């Protein structure tokens, strides 16, 4: 049982980020897409925490707090928006959201 090093954390966060991005691109349901977004944000958090641990500096962790807060705000706004949209269109599928194009 080996000690996890910085690179492991980074690998994890990178994986999370990619998964999130993939989700944003391929999933059709707005809510799921939104979750994938959260995943991307948090992957960054993982990386930051790991780094600040590595450097023994607090900046990173402070940053993480900022990000969490911001993410919360984003979620609040985002969900409200998605709900409003659902009320109007009775759907949360992305394909239905292409009235403006070209």
């Amino acid at each position, binding site marked *: 049982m080996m000690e996890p090093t910085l690179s492991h954390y980074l690998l994890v966060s990178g994986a999370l980020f990619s998964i999130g*991005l993939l989700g*944003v*691109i*391929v999933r*059709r349901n707005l809510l799921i*897409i939104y979750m994938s977004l959260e995943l991307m944000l948090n992957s960054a958090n993982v990386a930051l925490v790991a780094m600040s641990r590595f450097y023994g500096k607090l900046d990173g962790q402070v940053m993480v707090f900022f990000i969490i807060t911001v993410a919360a705000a984003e979620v609040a706004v985002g969900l409200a928006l998605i709900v409003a949209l659902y009320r109007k269109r009775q759907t949360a599928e*992305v*394909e239905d*959201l*292409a*009235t*403006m*194009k*070209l």
Partner: protein
Amino acid sequence: MELAAWLIFLLPLISAVTIGIGAFRSKPISAGISIAAVVGSFILTFVMVANGSEFPDGQGPSPKVSWLRLDGLSVDIGLKIDGLSKLMLCVVTGVGSLIHIFSLGYMKEDRDFSRYFAFLSLFIFSMLGIVLADNFVMMFIFWELVGVSSYLLIGFWFDKPSAADAAKKAFMTNRVGDFGFLLGILMVWAAFGSVSFDVLEKEKATVLCGLAGFLIFCGAIGKSAQAPLHVWLPDAMEGPTPVSALIHAATMVAAGVYMLCRVFFLIEGTWAMEAIAWIGGITSLMAALMAVQQDDIKRILAYSTLSQLGYMVMVVGLGGETNSDYYKITNVAGTDAAMFHLTTHAFFKAMLFLGAGSVIYACHHEQDIWKMGGLRRRMPRTYWTFLIGTLALCGVPLFSGFFSKEAILTVAYKESMPLFLIAVAVAVLTTFYMTRLFLVAFCGEPRSKHAEHAKESPVVMTLPLLILAVPSVVAGYFNMHAPDPLILFASLIAVVFGALLANSIYRNATDDPLPVRLGFIARAMKARFWFDEIYQWFIDKVQERLAKLADIIDRWIIAGLLVRGAHGSTEFAGRVLRLAQTGNLQTYAFWFAAGLAAVLVFALS
């Protein structure tokens, strides 16, 4: 004297301008001004010649006006006055005056009477410009101006399509000649760095390559209607008859010959000389042949003019020995003979034309000789003067033409046998067609009621004829040399033979028997050897097609393919790029990721 010189030059311009500005409202005034101007120039010329004031070479009458002064190229408007130009002045102003007076009657009824005189004055001015020019550029300037004034006069009755076309043709043909002339001037300037005759002559500048000389001669080919640019002269007869007499017999067409004599020192001793001589010879022969089968009285005279000009050009080309005390006009046999013939020819040919004009006037603008006849009794003065003219032109001894033609033959005999023979042949033909014209038009019975009711023209028209008759007879004596018996013999034979032949064929003939007898040859002569047709073909098939091609390229390739193409492809690119905007946010997210990936690759590799 200097003032006089400038006045000679400027009087016609002044008259032209005044008529143009305001005087044209009143016919008599404008005619008066114009005639006064030209006569004034004539008198002044006469005075100047009389007290024989030579301006030493280099400085003509001051002040020289500087027209253009740049380093390396400076052009003055200055007058060159020497024997040559003085002689020419006499011819131009003298004949000019008489023709002005003649026109007074001939154009009486014309509604554009004033415009006519304005143009005449303009022409005289330009002609004097050529005569007095003391450098190439100035000569070229007036060369062009002469061209345009002749354009205006030929196209004087511009409502008549034929006249308008003839004018256009004349101008364009001249332009082709001038093209060569300009290049010649450029070459001379490039070679010697000056355009002034005096400077060039002082430097004894001889153009090393004959090309420049020949190019300059091109100008003469155009103006003096040498082959192959002779086609405009016959058509130019569409103009009023006095104009034909003045411009297309006496003065403008002679300008080419005059110019050659003026710049003889440049062409001397180059291959250009042979070229000139042969072109002259060929022209004279060809024109004489064509004249044989023409029926329009003015055209016959026009072709005879052509062939006489051919004579002059030929003899200039032949050059010959130089002997300053023997020759009075220039010190070279060729140019001397040329100028001599030019002078006499100017008088009698002008008279012939005016005579023709008087005939035409009397026959209510009938020009076909076969519709005339029997005018002898009806218009005696015209008849007699015309006779004198004919004799002079044929070169019957004791008439002016005899001496000058004899001078030419002498030179030809000395310089080149083939050209001499051509010259003699031309002499025969000349007598032949002139006799033909004379017999058909004046003798025999009237062949149309116009001819029957013809009556003598008013005195204002016949007076110039009578006046011109004098020099036509005597002009030969001022430069006669003891004739070489052989030459004398040859020319006499030529005259007699031609006259008898024509007499045998045309006495009391009612129509022309030659076509029947000669067939194709006669047709070729009548059709003027199809020159016009060939040119027309060239213009339609080559020139027009070239223009058409250019137009197509311009319209379809440049403006169409390239410009509209660029426009279209831009628009298209826009429409294509827009397709990226699918409206689906996941596509957008994909673009985002893909774009970033591309940037990463581009930046980090």
